[in-house]
């Protein structure tokens, strides 16, 4: 029992379960799953689907934080990736009313991901080679990136009509949303990379003790560069999912404040912002907590103007639940009451 409560994922999982229980109290059909049109329907599936982009971004963020960095440009990179893919697909109606894409779909997707990875590499170079503080280095792209996305789209919302592209954000595979498959496989792949490759060992050793890793002959700068590049790539993937989901690229709003949600998801999952010990599964749970909260607030019918305040209060409560100090205090207070 003690070992269970001391597991890194225990309190994040408890927080998520409590939120799910609370949601099902407010909404009796919350946990209901139905099979319709060849795939699963239900609030839980909906949450998983909507959480997918955040999960993907947060997984990248987890690794950056693990090597004692931070990337606050991911929201902007999401917008850039969305803009690039929308522009590349472009598309026009043919005489028959059929939608054509300007470039092959694979090329559009690959270009968006390449640009996103380049953004990550840029961040990494600023941190590793120019020696900037990560938060400052990525602040540059956070501000400039959204500007670049706006330049690309000419300040307009670019609508995509090419149907095959919609599968990423709206499609289903074996009854589950495609976006969930993407996030799930990314997590599984990362998990394998972290536990079964040299890169994983290096990332964990740099996160745990950068100086010891250096003395052991690990070239931290190359590894850190990889990690930032991957974080950009992950944001690019999220950008594809988001733009596919809304069938458009909105440079002003795509991925807005996503960087903060991602940092929050990483933290809620139990990874320390100071770097070192990290948990990918925790991050996935953290992203689910955030999406569950959001869905819960909508389903409660909270007026939009107090929406953010309610969300903040709930996040605060979740944080308190996860704080060992607070739990001790609560226990002590409860005992004091009893005696």
């Amino acid at each position, binding site marked *: 029992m003690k*070992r269970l409560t001391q597991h890194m994922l225990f309190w994040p999982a408890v927080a998520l379960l409590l939120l799910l229980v609370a949601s099902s109290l407010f909404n009796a059909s919350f946990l209901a799953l139905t099979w319709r049109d060849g795939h699963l329907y239900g609030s839980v599936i909906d949450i998983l689907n909507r959480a997918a982009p955040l999960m993907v971004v947060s997984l990248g963020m987890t690794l950056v934080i693990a090597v004692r960095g931070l990337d606050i440009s991911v929201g902007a990179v999401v917008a850039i990736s969305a803009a690039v893919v929308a522009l590349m697909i472009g598309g026009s109606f043919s005489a028959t009313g059929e939608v054509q894409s300007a470039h092959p779909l694979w090329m559009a997707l690959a270009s968006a991901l390449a640009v996103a990875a380049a953004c990550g590499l840029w961040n990494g170079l600023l941190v590793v080679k120019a020696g900037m503080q990560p938060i400052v280095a990525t602040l540059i792209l956070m501000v400039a990136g959204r500007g670049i996305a706006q330049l690309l789209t000419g300040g307009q919302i670019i609508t995509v009509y090419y149907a095959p592209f919609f599968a990423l954000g709206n499609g289903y595979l074996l009854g589950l949303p495609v976006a969930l498959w993407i996030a799930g496989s990314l997590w599984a792949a990362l998990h394998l990379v972290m536990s*079964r*490759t*040299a*890169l994983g*060992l*290096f990332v*964990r*050793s740099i996160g*745990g*003790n950068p*100086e*010891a*890793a*250096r*003395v*052991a*002959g*690990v*070239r931290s700068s*190359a590894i850190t560069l990889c990690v930032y590049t991957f974080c950009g790539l992950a944001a690019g993937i999220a950008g594809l999912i988001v733009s596919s989901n809304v069938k458009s690229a909105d440079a002003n709003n795509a991925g807005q404040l996503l960087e903060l949600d991602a940092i929050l998801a990483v933290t809620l999952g139990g990874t320390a912002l100071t770097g*070192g*010990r990290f948990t990918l599964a925790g991050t996935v749970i953290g992203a689910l907590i955030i999406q569950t909260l959001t869905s819960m607030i909508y389903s409660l019918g909270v007026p939009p103007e107090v929406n953010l305040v309610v969300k903040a209060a709930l996040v605060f409560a979740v944080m308190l639940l996860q704080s060992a100090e607070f739990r001790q205090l609560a226990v002590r207070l409860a005992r004091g009451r009893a005696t």
Partner: protein
Amino acid sequence: MSSPAIVLRARDISRAFPGVQALSGVELTLRAGEVHALMGQNGAGKSTLIKVLTGVHAPDAGSIELSGLLVSPESPIHAQELGISAVHQESHLLPNLSVAENICAGRYPRRPWTRGGGIDWRETERRAAELLASLGINLDVSQLAGPLPAALQQLATVARAVSTDARVLILDEPTSSLDADEVQALFALIRRLRDKGVAILFVTHFLDQVYEICDRMTVLRNGRFVGEYACARLDAHGLIAAMVGREVAAAEKTAATDAAAGDAAAPPVLSARNISRRGQLKPMDIELKAGEVLGLAGLLGSGRTELARLLFALDARDTGDIHIDGQPAELDHPADALQAGLGFCPEDRKHSGIVADLSVRENIALALQARMGLTKFLKLSEQRQIAEKLVAALGIKAASIETPIGQLSGGNQQKAIIARWLATHPRVLILDEPTRGIDVAAKQELMNEILELARGGTAVLFISAEIDEVVRVSDRIMVLRDRAKAGELPRGADEDAVYSMIAASHQP
């Protein structure tokens, strides 16, 4: 002789951690006005006992009485309020605050609100100065703590610890980074406190210091209480026997290697010419031959570690070049040194040796994997095999090779770091203070390992502050003084020869 009053009595203390029974049924009695040594090998339970006394860990069983009253410290601050203060090896002053601010930290005197409230800085300095004066420490309390020598900082730390009217003062390896003069200054302070009636618990690995300053000692072994002895009644030999549970001849000379070292004509594996770094090391040459142990002796600050760091490319050198097997080597990053067949066990194991959260296996595999690079992965089965082999060979005590290395005792961590380098089969292995903070028996084992390694053809650079160790294992001794090379001594030189070479410049 009337027996002094008992201040602290810990009875039947037990404490378990996952996989390890760190303490079981341990007794400790501290008396007013006595210095009491806590002795034991690494992993004997000394640190855990101290953590129990200072409220870091709660004991699973047992009781602590302070002046006859049952207490249970819940945190270091609570322990301090009860009158139990501790100075740890790594407890330092805050470098950006003055000595006075450090001493009064957390208990700053306040000005009355009639005078604007806030902290009364003048009173802070006055109290700190008064405290230091009462302890016979001559130190300007208004200066910043950061630039002070380690020894003065240590004295101020002890002063801070007793400023809370401590009845019990725990000193955990306070002398490990001090040189002989500084140790004497600390001892003078300890004696003064002892005479004031403070009960002092002194933990160290230096046996001579125990006999110099302690009245009694408690010996632990594998988490169990072995006994309490008056220092006058138990000699060093008996003490070591009590600590290790077997007879170890501590003073026995280890025969230096006879084999490979003799070949004077063999070309050096590593030779460095004229290497220097401004402010750290004056230009010097060094050569290492296959199969020899080169001892590096010198006082603290003589440039021992600095030389090692230059050779391993941890610091950039200003001048000079390094040849390996006669070929010029470009060493710009430790990774280059690793590729060239060098290995380096750093002095500060916690800061630059272990990755605490990673398992013993991963810590051991790290350098080998770093040399293999990103693309070739050392399979888990191979990692396990290598780790199991080295854990057995070096006698590393761990619940399993998957245990996080941070849970191991200091000596076992040190051995695991050495194992990390042995896994790479280095041609040159630099060991910076590998025996620091390790108990006598483990030291002996470690030095045997080093000799074994040299017999296998590895060139070993052995750095230690303890001259007797250097003399015991080295085929050749290089003496450093004031960041420059003072000279070399051949094998067979005794400690006196080393001392006189170190001291040479101080004699007109």
